[in-house]
């Protein structure tokens, strides 16, 4: 492997490319990073070429998200849109026993093979991996990122709920764009990202969304859960959200913050289960309390205006009880099970569980728990859909349509 000649101190001279996993949340994350001087660009390229490019450099049996992300990066670098001497790539790394922790290494390998030895690969992570190549997470940056994700989740949830019932087509999207712009400029101006600001702004945002004229009718409520990338990313799930919207469903994606909280919670759980690093466990516990407090505020704001608000993270952690142990912490682990139950309990009994073909953790925490969940919640109507470079849309949509047909029948009962 050749040296990239990159030094972390020069990072702000670089254009940093980041895959756009979840549109609303990542728009704000971009703003948060820009405000700290990182020139971040989001990659949303979606073409057949992206997957094909990925397949050239990544083993076919590797998970689909790795194929897509790496394909997207290489496609971007080849396009001539970016100067290879001042471009860096960045991805998040959750760490843990899932093979996804390997993305960064696979990306490095692919870049070297594709002749982009000089392109540095940066990591966002909390687990101490890739120490030399990690973006420095200052308390201020962390604060902004948390704000970006919290605001993003709130706006995303409001969008989906308004979208389903809007009277004038396009209103929900317009309102969403308006708020994304607003919050982005706050972040750029370093405003309203402190906890007390957010607690004030959440109700204001929710209030403003009530100005989108809606008419609540009886609709099929469909939740999407799954492997984090495939769940959120339209290129990962073949624009599942759009498909469901076309089928006249109300769509709900449990927020991105839940996943981050899950990662933090796992550090604490490791200390509970195996007695590892008890101090770290305590710190994580405190962080969780703070973040969860924010979530609860957002949720209360939503509920007070008649929108749907999620349970607090503490409550969510209790959901898998009797079905899956909180010790299952690889991939989306117990969170996946918890989110399914949370959705069911809040009326979203129809669920698409989306994962890359051959996703190991989901054999356990996704497909493995469906039987038990159905025992406990007979109304649950869950379909597991696998995504990979050559599975066809027809096949996937057909399965989802089946789930929808059953859901419609349940609705009529």
């Amino acid at each position, binding site marked *: 492997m050749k040296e990239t000649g990159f030094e972390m101190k020069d990072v702000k001279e670089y254009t940093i490319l980041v895959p756009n996993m979840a549109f609303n949340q990542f728009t704000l994350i971009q703003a948060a990073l820009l405000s700290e001087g990182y020139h971040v660009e989001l990659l949303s390229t979606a073409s057949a070429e992206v997957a094909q490019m990925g397949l050239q450099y990544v083993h076919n049996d590797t998970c689909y998200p790795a194929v897509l992300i790496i394909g997207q990066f290489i496609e971007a670098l080849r396009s001539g849109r970016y100067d290879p001497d001042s471009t860096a790539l960045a991805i998040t790394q959750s760490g843990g026993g899932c093979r996804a922790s390997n993305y960064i290494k696979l990306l*490095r390998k692919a870049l070297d093979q594709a002749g982009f030895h000089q392109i540095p690969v940066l990591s966002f992570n909390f687990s101490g991996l890739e120490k030399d190549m990690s973006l420095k997470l200052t308390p201020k940056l962390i604060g902004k990122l948390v704000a970006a994700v919290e605001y993003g989740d709130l706006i995303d949830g409001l969008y989906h709920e308004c979208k389903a019932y809007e009277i004038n087509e396009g209103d929900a999207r317009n309102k969403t764009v308006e708020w994304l712009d607003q919050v982005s400029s706050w972040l750029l101006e370093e405003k309203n990202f402190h906890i007390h600001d957010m607690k004030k702004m959440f109700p204001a945002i929710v209030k403003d969304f009530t100005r989108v004229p809606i008419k609540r009718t009886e609709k099929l409520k469909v939740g999407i859960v799954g492997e984090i990338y495939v769940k959120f990313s339209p290129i990962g799930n073949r624009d599942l959200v759009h498909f469901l919207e076309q089928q006249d469903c109300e769509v709900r994606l449990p927020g991105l913050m839940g996943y981050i909280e899950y990662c933090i919670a796992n550090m604490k759980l490791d200390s509970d289960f195996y007695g590892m690093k008890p101090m770290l466990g305590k710190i994580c516990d405190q962080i969780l309390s703070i973040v969860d407090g924010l979530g609860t505020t957002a949720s209360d704001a939503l509920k007070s205006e008649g929108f749907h608000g999620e349970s607090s993270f503490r409550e969510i952690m209790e959901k898998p009880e009797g079905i899956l142990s909180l010790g*299952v912490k690889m991939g989306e682990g117990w969170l996946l099970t918890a989110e399914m139950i949370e959705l069911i309990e809040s009326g979203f009994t129809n669920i698409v569980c989306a994962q890359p073909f051959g996703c190991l953790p989901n054999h356990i925490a996704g497909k493995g728990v469906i039987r038990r969940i159905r025992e406990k919640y007979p109304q649950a109507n869950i379909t597991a859909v696998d995504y990979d470079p050559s599975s066809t849309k027809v096949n996937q949509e057909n399965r989802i349509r089946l789930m929808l047909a059953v859901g419609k029948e349940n609705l009529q009962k």
Partner: protein
Amino acid sequence: MRAGLDIGSTTIKGVVLDDDGQIIWSSYERHYSHILEKTEEMLRQISKAAGEQPLILGFSGSAGMGIAEHAGVPFVQEVYAERVSAVKLNPETDCIIELGGEDAKILFLSGGMEVRMNGSCAGGTGAFIDQMASLLKMKPDEMDEAAQKAERQYTIASRCGVFAKTDVQPLINQGADHKDIAASIYQAVVNQTITGLAQGRTITGNILYLGGPLTFSKALRDRFDETLGVKGICPDHSLYYVAIGAALYCDQQIDIAIVLEKMNSYESVGYASLPPLFRNRDEYWQFHNRHAKAAVTRIPFDASVKRIHIGIDSGSTTIKIAVIDDDGNLLSDDYRSNDGNPVPIVRSFLMELYEKHPEVIIGSVTCTGYGEELMRHAFNCDYGLVETVAHFTAASHFMPDVDFIIDIGGQDMKCFRIEDGVISDLFLNEACSSGCGSFLQTFASALGYDTQDFARLGLFAEKPVDLGSRCTVFMNSSVKQAQKDGASIEAISAGLAVSVVKNALYKVIRCANVEQLGRNIVVQGGTFYNEAVLRAFEKEMGVEVIRPDIAGLMGAYGAALYGSRKASKEHVSSLISYDDLVQFHHSTSQITCQGCGNHCQLTVNTFASRHKMISGNRCEKPITGHQVEPSLNLYAYKQKKLLGYSQIHVPSKVKIGIPLVLNMYELLPFWHTFFTVLGFDVVVSPLSNQQIYAMGTSTIPSDTACFPAKLTHGHIAWLQKQDVDHIFYPCMSYNVDEGLGDNHYNCPIVAYYPENIRDNMDGMNESYFLEPFLDLSDREKLMSHLCDYMKEHFPYLHRSRIMHAVNLAYQEYENYMQDVRCQADRIIHEARRQGKHIIVLAGRPYHVDPLINHGIDTMITKYHAAVITEDSISWKMKKMETSVLNQWSYHARLYAAARYCTTQMDMDLIQLVSFGCGLDAITADETSSILHAGNKLYTQIKIDEITNPGAVNIRIRSLFAAVQERKESHERNRF
């Protein structure tokens, strides 16, 4: 009046119902992918049948979605439609099993409605049966009839069609009875349906069989009945349930004339396309003429020829024969389908040769290919050689400095890299990726074309379809989608050719650019006669290659060349005489070997000379009567050692069951000791076998998990039958820490499989199924956790006793590991003393299970090599740099073992990879680069529920051939 149309993947079905719900008209037709035309035609018929009356119309079926949307006809999902019909027509039904052209469905109607469809991997069932029938050269109804007379069953992979095909082909080649194969194929369909779809629910009560395959095949229904222990019925109109459902469910009156009009304007949305293969005819002719130059010298086979050499390549579906003179000139050749039995074909060829050329001296006869052994025994040929070497020999005749050879045949694909005159890298298509000649053939005939015509169509397609690169099953649906999107047959033909190439390049060889292959490439195998494939290859790689004019004959030609070099000038072949050929007779019989747990299906070939030849065996036992001395096989040693623990029982009131699965294959010494010391009687499940596997298949929630994981269900079910008081099977995020990696995780499956067991098997309550979360890498913490846990379940135990047991358990685990390491050292020492090569058969601890490793260990020792494991040598290395994240304990051992291998002259590594192991996608690349960096060959064997011993043999033999060649060239260089 109501009408329904079911537009499926291969057929289209229509019904018209009168106001009482009686069927007054129905039709069932194959659409050969002319979906739009057939739909229109059927609508016109419906319109006629309905007369002037107002009509309620609905569409259903996987291919009907887009059309319905466009034509403004209500659409209902097909499984759901089926349910609507069943509820009306057969209200007492508990469960529906429906097989369609490409999908399988189970609907549970009573006791909590649930509907299941096969996942994207499980592939086609109807199409699969059709494929198998054509492989057996039978019509579907003949196959059904044959299967009803079956006497025995073979195990055929029940995962996906492509796998099954690789199982069926060797059976045909070995001469197994077609009626038995037919029945086994139906059984595979049954197993696939149950494993994939039951997911923990028992199929019982009143069963309804629907869909084409179940309607047409009694044998298939019988297989289901027997397997499920039920008596299902196949009702009248069983083909039309979806169509009837569509008619009943929808409630919109439709004017067919308007629908037809709308369909007329059906503009396809377009599809992803690739640049054309040729820009114009000129370009084509240039290309064509360039390739015409790579021709072998042919001379007439007349009286001037004094001495000849014969090469026979007995492949999986074809037989190829080449006759050459002493100078390598081609005199005669033959290339034809083996019709399932190559022996009579070769016999008549040889007889003809003797008759036409009574004077000629046969210098040598050399055999290669799957049927090599059979040919050698049948005709007493001189030499046999592994087909990779045969192909290499032939390729270097056309291009002496060849770097890379790609051979795509009917069933298999072999690609190899040549370095310093030796095969340095071998890629075979794993059982999951098809993409070979027969793949194109299958599509051609499915679309109603002859293979060659079909290939020609693609040459000048303007917009070839971009179909990606995956196995046939996926390809089926991609083709379907492309057609729906308006792709022409030409575009599909070209697209398929490109996909074959992409499959070879990116899936089998896994190359990123042409530099990795080298500049001098020879492509061969029958598939490259297809100019569309050849062109696609050159375009994809941006390089001009050599395609010999005898591309399909290269194995045979290479074998003949090999023989001509090997035989001395005076050598006369040992081939049987003309008289013997006249007298020749050959019969086969099948037996199941009872020698060991593998229970190989043996084919016994008896020849006129009373000479017998046994095939299908994994070890020498059925031939020589005794196993190859197991003392140089660490797999055998480990097995025996682990079974030793199962024998130890202590008198106790409480029985603890431990499943011998996944990580328990390593931790059994630990847990067995732990519980025995505490005074429990430990019952260990035995080594896996098919019966044990079958006991748990209906509770597997995810059919794409790896086979070792799926086996767990059977072991637990076995333990439940032993009246144990508890089953102990802990979850472990972390593995033992041997300091070889950055972390010491287990893979998610090993770590959490107990959770899957708890959630998907009955009777797993908290007090019975003990599955604590434990971490063995920290003794103090483990001790305190275990004390708490054990006291909760067994309050009478004292903490001090528990702690004592933990200490002894650690001690025993250490002893066990130490013993394995010592044994490895003994084996290495002894192998060196005897001058034997040493193979590190590297996998995971559970690969010791004979049902998982398919006896590959003994297949290796058969070639006079010693076998050791990765964990027996990994300790000799220190932690090292890897280019992937090295955070799983088992993988860290693998990398260390690979590195150690590179330091030992007489040691090579073969990696066992279980299908569906997502992590091995990563480890395979890394292991390969470690070995290559150390100038060693990388060999991988992919294993699943079933493996094809033929392919495994090629790998093993090619490795040994290359090792031998390297050794010889090394010695040549020394002097």
